[in-house]
């Protein structure tokens, strides 16, 4: 028998709505955590939406005032492990033990507006070819092999160029954030 089209029906209780609001407020943190275990943005999106659904379903378990990010990361970790089990044949898969260990050592904050602004500023300073490569890797979601094919470079050359660009961005962004902090101190 054909199934009927699904539409939204029920109403959420105020606590669940507040938990959803917390998720939305900390979405960048949760996304950054998930993305650490997925090289692909689209896959991270899929896991993130599963996390949101579970957060909604288990909202009653969350005690208001406790650490929401830590709680949501626990849920995210289980979703990541679930996804990894489905793709256990993937050569780049990290073992569950390693994922556990990394999750336990994740810094409290993985995303800040300040770092985001700094990275964006530093991206403007990249040489055009390096900028193009970063764009292909992160906007186009192309791997080094595909980038090499598109640019008629060798894969090794692409790896080296990507590595250099990322090293520059890390160094530049950390200098930028440092400079902002120094300026803030000076104006206090």
């Amino acid at each position: 028998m054909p199934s009927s089209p699904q539409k939204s029906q029920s109403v959420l209780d105020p606590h669940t709505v507040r938990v959803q609001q917390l998720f939305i407020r900390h979405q960048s943190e949760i996304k950054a955590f998930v993305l650490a275990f997925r090289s692909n943005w689209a896959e991270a999106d899929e896991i993130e939406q599963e996390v949101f659904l579970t957060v909604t379903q288990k909202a009653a378990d969350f005690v208001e005032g406790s650490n929401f990010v830590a709680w949501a990361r626990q849920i995210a970790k289980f979703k990541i492990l679930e996804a990894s089990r489905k793709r256990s044949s993937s050569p780049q898969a990290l073992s569950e033990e390693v994922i556990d260990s990394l999750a336990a050592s994740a810094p409290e904050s993985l995303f800040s507006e300040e770092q985001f602004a700094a990275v964006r500023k530093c991206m403007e300073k990249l040489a055009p070819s390096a900028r193009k490569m970063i764009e292909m890797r992160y906007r186009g979601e192309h791997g080094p092999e595909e980038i090499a094919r598109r640019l008629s470079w060798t894969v090794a050359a692409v790896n080296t160029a990507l590595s250099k660009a990322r090293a520059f961005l890390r160094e530049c962004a950390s200098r930028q954030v440092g400079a902002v902090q120094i300026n803030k101190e000076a104006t206090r």
Partner: protein
Amino acid sequence: MSVDLRLTQLIERYFDGVLQQDEAAELGQELLDSASARAEFWEFAKLHNLLHEAEKLNAGSSAALRVINVGECTIEAPDLLAPRQFAWQKWAFTAAALLLLGVSIYLGAGVLLQDKPAQGDTVYVAQLRHSDNAEWAPTGAQLNDGDHIARGPLELESGVAELVFFNGAAVAIEGPAKIELLSTSRMILHRGNLSADVPHKAIGFTVETPDSKVIDLGTRFGVKVDPKGVTETHVFEGKVTVESSQKIKNAPKRQNVTQDNSLRIDQKKKSVTPGKADISRFPTPERVISLPLIDGGFEDGTVVGTSGIAAMPGVWSGDYCSVVGPEQDVTPRSGKGMLKFQLTFGSGSLENTRAQLMSSDQFQIVDLKAFIPEIERGGCSVEASGWFRCAVGNPESNNRFGIGVYSFHGTPEEARDLWARKNAEALCGSLKEIPAEQVEKRWSNVRTSTQLPKNSTLLLIHIFAKHIMASSDASEEFPGHYADSIELKLSVAPQSGKQK
């Protein structure tokens, strides 16, 4: 190679998705053994995420706001159809919407819970944009235009329905058809006819059929599955990869199908047959096409004629106006140039009529020849959009800016005469004005749209600055009145395959 360098290399390879099995084991051991290795991993993870976020933001920065309905409230939101590009801003907006409107929505890529979200595992992946006489199974099931559609099966008994997936892919389905939505970028066509219009940002959109898989590479294509399970893929623009579920002798398992070509896969007969694409057999979703308006950004080198309406498409012409860079306190809205309105007359205006003129106008003709097949089918509309701004201190209360778009049946050479008799000759037209005091200190957008009658062959775009009281000093009629970023879009209505 030093230990640190090797670790960095492994981490980079991991994040690039190219780690080999032995390397994964090596990296895993290092991460288990060393706290500093884990710290390095997370430092790199932060950068990896920031670069993704920055590039997604860059990719979506030019997308427009659109109005969406959340329950009974209508709010402006970043383009819902580009969720990934807007992931970052989108959430900031959503949080604000939640707090301000007291409703609960989730605009993540793939999930959209409306103001009354379900508690169960309901994942919304698409929206019903239009439907035309659509009857859903089971009989009596109701889906309305604008409804969000969850992951799962759908059966369209008759009519045409157009779904827009949250990754931006638009799919027109013609009943009878049985489909299943799997995610924001994947669906199954069990039987029936559909066509997909997949924008660049949604490349990879996949239609699975009982015997094959059609993977989009940025294109428009149609897929048909007949009752025997035979799959036909027709490519109207761009290319797709078709992957057959089982290898058929003398045919590759995966092959690309390019524009104007088709591929028929019959697993029972073990045959793969190439052919020509036939768009007329498929329903088509609504399409929005940027029309060839030339130099709408008024960049350096744009010629702005002063002799009234030109007799050719693709050039601005009208009254005395000029293209300028930043001046007074105004910088162009986009690029380095903008249009400055100057006088209410052009070089062709008669001396004795100049005193009565009140607006400084520019026109551009757009030849619709290339779009006649679409326009003749009916249901097309056109939207003109422009940005206007006054320098500080210049908006007088009787000044106005405006943009108009008019359709005619005629040739570019006839445009000037058609305009002179526009009350009788214009097939359709629309004009929108904005008082100049609303555009002081900031660029403001003015849009206007009109239906396109089936016999339209020509569009005339009209932008202007107008004063209601004539100025006594003709050299300073409009001392700081600017326009920029003029755009024109044609919306082509969805079509049923059977009507064509």
